[in-house]
């Protein structure tokens, strides 16, 4: 069990991530991302390359080696940054049960 738990107090970091998903992050955002991307997972969202540098499908990869990649139906990205934002929102929901868009609108 990861020690750090994401809560509503992390909402500023969600805002930071959605503005710039890749690159320099504040320590607070890095900690949120470490929780989302760290070892404490049963599955992780992955991007299945449909067309290199053009099109990706969202999948779920189970921890067990050789497990079948489970495709998330009807989720296709044509932009990697948009994919990162969508995965971030899904993980926020998975980890907190809350919708990050709703929280952002309440705190803006």
């Amino acid at each position, binding site marked *: 069990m990861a020690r750090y738990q994401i809560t509503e107090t992390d909402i500023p970091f969600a805002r930071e991530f959605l503005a710039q*998903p*890749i690159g320099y*992050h504040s320590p607070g955002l*890095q900690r949120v991302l470490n929780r989302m991307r760290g070892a404490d*997972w049963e599955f992780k969202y*992955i*991007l299945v*390359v449909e067309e290199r*540098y053009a099109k990706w499908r969202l999948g779920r990869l189970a921890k067990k080696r*050789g497990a079948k990649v489970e495709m998330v139906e009807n989720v296709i990205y044509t932009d990697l940054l948009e994919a990162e934002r969508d995965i971030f929102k899904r993980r926020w929901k998975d980890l907190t049960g809350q919708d990050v868009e709703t929280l952002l609108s309440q705190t803006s």
Partner: protein
Amino acid sequence: MLPIVGYTNKLTVEPGETIDVMVSSFGANRYRADFRQIIQGDTNPDGPGYKDRLIDLDLGSDRTAVAKPFRPGSCVIVPGLEALPRIRDFTLAAVVKPTLLDGRNRCVVSLPGFAEIGIDEHDRLTGLAGDHALVTSTRLSVDHWHIVSLSYCAATQNLSLSVVKDLDASSEPPLPETVTVKADLPPGELTQCVIAATRDSDGELAGFLDGKIDRPAFFDTALDPNNLRNLLADFAQLRRQRSLLGAWDFSCKMTTQTICDVSPYQLHGQIHNAPTRAMTGWLWKGQELDWKLRPDLYSAIHFHSTDMYDAGWEVDFSLTIPDDLKSGVYSVRLVPDGDEDAAYYCVFAVRPPRNRASGNTVAFLFPTCSYMAYANHRLGMDVPGTEIGMGRAVELDRHHMFLQDNPGIGFSVYETHDDETGVFHSSRLRPIVDLQPKVKSFLGGYGSNIWQFNADTHILGWLDAIDQDYDVITDEDMHADGLRLLQRYNVILTGTHPEYYTGNMVEAMQGFTDRGGRLMYLGGNGFYWVVSFNEDMPGIMECRRSEAGIRPWEPGHGQFYHGFTGEYGGLWRRNGHPPNHLCGVGMTSQGFDISEPYVVSPEAANPRVGFIFDGVEGQKIGDFGLAGGGAAGLEVDRADPTQGTPDHALVLASSTRHTDIYLMTPEDLLDPTPDWSGTQADIIRADLTFFETIGGGAVFSTGSIAWAGSMAWNGYDNEISKMTENVLRRFDDKTPFEYP
């Protein structure tokens, strides 16, 4: 997915030589093959564009694509048991420490068709002989060695299975559990002994063990299990036992495939699929850490159901390399069912002739050791934390999806086996699906996100773009031929990440620069890990990651010396050959999100390096690129006199900041305080470094994997490309460099 995959029997071949191609269908019905020189493999639309060159060589017409399986799993096979006297009474015994008990039936030792000792789905010991099956109530444990035996006495008709846990915590040997049934067994018809596996009804190897076995033995009498412990513990005494039919001492001929029988019958065997030898055995209690000094303590082999050495596929066709073909990186391209988009590339190097120089003065060093180390790696799939290091989501390209569906293809030295022990071996005698152009990877940075071979094609493409003739020589060539080969050239260029080096390779490269050769190290984290080849097993490589270094596993206590050569495994830095001696810089940090520019240092104004900056302006260089958007990144090296950087080396430019995904290497992180990250620690940087050698040679080191991704920016028209060309032109001029 990959409807067709293949491999060749060599990764380096000279003109006039023949190379075999092995192909398997994973859905394809038919295929055709052609022969191509690989020029540039990155398909990123922001890059210079994919480029290969069709070579006019007839590889035959359409062929049927035949499905061939992967058959992983290691064991020992001892043939010739039919030569033994007919057996009535017997004892089959071994010492075993399973490392994975997962509900699968496993075999410890088998005399197929006669008797075997195994482990059932409830972790209990099982014995089979004739129609009789026995099982103990004792459950085997991954924490202990167990002395196991199956014996039969015709006079009493007792068939007995016995197990005793060897408990370190107990001063007295615990009593064995023995289960006995009455049986009337016919005399044995023996053919072979299989250790750590058995034969199924089709004669195929099956029931592979994940675990260690020590001193399996076979006797023509029913032995009391209470006596077995002392008997097996002393090979010298054991070999004089008149009841002995075979006893296999795994500590003999340790560096070969041969398994020695210490009995007078000389029933020697062979390992299959390269299990790990030179492993601590039943009697190892820390008395010695080097197997060469006490091989008797290293009498265990660690077997894995996931070991893979030689896929062993039948040859589909062979081709002879034309005598006049210029050296380069080539590929047999397999096109399944007319679908060029689904083509599979079997990549290899055509080296210059062995017996004469080609006349080229520039060579690209094709890093086959590093390609093998990463072969079929699953870093983004199996390894938690890779996504943190990438700073973004994992992309699975179609070859990754193939790996996910086919773990039997065998692993890279970045993985663990299913029992979570490290993978020490990687082989090229199997498809290496990431040794292809066009593939994406995990660690290549935001942008092209390509790694190892495909990233190295940025350099091949650059050589093509600047019309530079070159030879391609491989790590294996350098390992075998040493300086005899390197001395043909004025300049050697490395790939982006020449991380894995044998002792021969280090010596050859050091000899080259010491004697006036010019080295262009166009990468990061080079010359880092010790690896070794095995003279008895072509095509396989060993790596034991001892003590330090950025490593996914450790070899286990007492197991730091390579089984193939006896070398101490781990970092060259800890073995008297820090990379800084060779190239002036050494690994300092890694991160796989974004890359940075270099900031030019005052040392760049030194007239000794004026030629490098000819036509290059500004104080910031490489603020662009296909590998993370900068020339400094992914894995970066620093100059460090305390690690052997020559005193006269000039650091021309350095990266001055990285993201906090970049952290300190463990070998430098003696006290883990929280300030060792890319935005805080000055030590986390790439140092662009130059120095002359005493023999009139010189070394230019980028200390960054991302450098080549910047060379390829804007169709190779940029300052990084320009600087690299400046260095190449001067390095290719034989005028000696003056040692300052």
